[in-house]
């Protein structure tokens, strides 16, 4: 590391002492238990070994970082594929803007809100100051056994990639009718303040962490947090024109299923980093175990969703199969490291059933969620969080329920208030004509598929 660089950086940026995201992480216990291997305590051997261990841990976390980055492309593809062609540019624009907003606001305030180190209001609110930067001497973050697991910068960039996800989840649910600038303002505030603040309760070592609430990689902290805002947005926006006419539910089909499928596969790919990276080290046993539970839950989610939708609809439904994969992934996210393989399959399968039922019910109660974000992220996020209390003997169902409730109340209220304020001031919804013409032309003066020869004149 070039010291000068950091020093310059330090002059303008405050220090931040990061704390491990999960208290009491059983670090490298598997390694310690290697038959015939007794790590030599404080001796020279450990020194060189732990230097290399630090590098590999950090490398894995960086791999996880770019995998989580891929999820943003996954969301962009899924959301635009599942909606109408005339709103595609708008969705792509939102997703491009959100990742920029997410990274920059997280650097400015989010990271220090989420991992405040010391809380100002005990376990409830803390802020370590604006900006990022670190003293090179303390750049290495270590696990419980004193071995380096990653750098300060890795910590930041991995967490920053998570941050924008919550807003992206909302993006899909409010698609095809929300005003662009209102959505962008909402996203900035939600991502910069709400997401990291509530995140601090658990991952920042706050009050829910103290209570023993468990959320491995964010069924609640990321997915439900996004899902609650999606719900608030959908309620305040109302359905798309033509969706519910004279007591009839009219389908508005997605315009590009290959794009949606690419999106889901890329999300799954990203989840290897989302869950695998949440181990916060390259611990072989733990990361590989998380790979197994994550993949099997996704697979079981597909099977569950295909089965139920085939029974209910008499046809095998691709959109439901894709939602099933995501449902399984969201479902296993809270407990990927603490449930058995068999449990991961059961959790994923139930998530697959849940998502199908939920999509249908939400449509029937006239909440118009074009991509099924509420069903996938909120419903399955809750399920996954509670499942930890059911399938892991070490965690309490009641504490999990408390966590779900706490996040639900605060996030829904905050998002609802925010959207309401925007509705009253700037307006939330594009006018009817723009909605009919499509937001691409209305908001961006551009078409997603400009190939029609007659347009070129």
């Amino acid at each position, binding site marked *: 590391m070039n010291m000068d660089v950091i020093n310059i950086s330090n002059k303008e940026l405050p220090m931040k002492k990061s704390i491990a995201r999960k208290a009491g992480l059983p670090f490298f216990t598997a390694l310690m238990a290697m038959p015939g291997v007794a790590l030599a305590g404080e001796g020279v051997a450990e020194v060189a070994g732990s230097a290399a261990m630090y590098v590999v841990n950090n490398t894995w976390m960086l791999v996880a970082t770019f995998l989580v980055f891929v999820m943003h492309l996954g969301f962009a593809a899924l959301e635009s594929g599942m909606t109408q062609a005339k709103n595609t540019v708008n969705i792509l624009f939102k997703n491009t803007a959100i990742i920029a907003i997410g990274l920059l606001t997280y650097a400015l305030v989010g990271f220090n809100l989420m991992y405040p180190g010391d809380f100002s209001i005990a376990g409830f609110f803390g802020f370590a100051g604006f900006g990022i930067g670190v003293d090179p001497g303390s750049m290495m973050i270590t696990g419980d056994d004193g071995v380096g697991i990653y750098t300060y910068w890795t910590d930041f960039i991995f967490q920053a990639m998570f941050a924008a996800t919550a807003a992206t989840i909302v993006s899909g649910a409010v698609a095809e009718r929300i005003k662009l600038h209102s959505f962008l303002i909402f996203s900035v505030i939600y991502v910069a303040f709400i997401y990291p603040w509530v995140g601090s309760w658990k991952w920042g070592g706050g009050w829910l962490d103290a209570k023993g609430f468990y959320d491995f990689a964010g069924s609640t902290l990321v997915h439900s947090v996004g899902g609650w805002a999606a719900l608030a947005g959908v309620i305040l926006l109302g359905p798309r024109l*033509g969706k519910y006419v004279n007591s009839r539910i009219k389908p508005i089909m997605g315009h590009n299923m290959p794009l949606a499928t690419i999106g889901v596969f890329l999300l799954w790919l990203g989840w290897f980093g989302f869950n695998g990276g949440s181990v916060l080290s390259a611990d072989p046993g733990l990361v590989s175990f998380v790979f197994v539970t994550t993949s099997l839950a996704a697979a079981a989610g597909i099977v569950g969703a295909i089965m139920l939708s085939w029974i209910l609809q008499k046809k095998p439904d691709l959109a439901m199969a894709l939602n099933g994969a995501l449902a399984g992934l969201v479902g296993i996210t809270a407990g990927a490291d603490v449930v058995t393989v068999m449990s991961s399959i059961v959790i994923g399968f139930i998530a697959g059933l849940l998502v199908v039922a939920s999509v249908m019910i939400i449509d029937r109660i006239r909440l118009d969620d074009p991509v099924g974000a509420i069903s996938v992220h909120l419903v399955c996020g809750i399920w996954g969080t509670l499942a930890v209390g059911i399938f892991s003997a070490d965690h309490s169902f009641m504490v999990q329920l408390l966590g779900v409730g706490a996040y639900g109340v605060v996030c829904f209220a905050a998002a609802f208030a925010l959207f309401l304020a925007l509705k009253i001031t700037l307006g939330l919804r594009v006018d009817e004509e723009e909605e*009919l013409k499509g937001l691409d*032309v*209305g908001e961006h*003066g*551009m078409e997603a598929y400009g190939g*029609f020869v*007659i*347009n070129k*004149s």
Partner: protein
Amino acid sequence: MKKIEAIIKPFKLDELKSALHDIGVTGMTASEVKGFGRQKGHTEVYRGAEYIVDFIPKVKIEIVIDESMVDQVTDAIIGSVKTGKIGDGKIFVLPVESVCRIRTGETGQEAI
């Protein structure tokens, strides 16, 4: 036999179909077209320069019917697709000399 061609706003197709169905029209053919008219297209910007996309998406409906139904169909179209805003479209009536159903070889009135 007459052929009625209506150029309408795309999102009105569903209502038009219902209205025609109600008066007993059992067949029609639709296609996507682009219309140029008084309704101004949207302005697009491209690399800082504005330009107008003046061909607007429309749907064209073709219905071949007996002469006696022309007025009824015309009224049904107007009734279902009119919004009162520029760009609602046109109805053209053209003469048709003969009609044939390919499947049966029937012609004239029975063929539609």
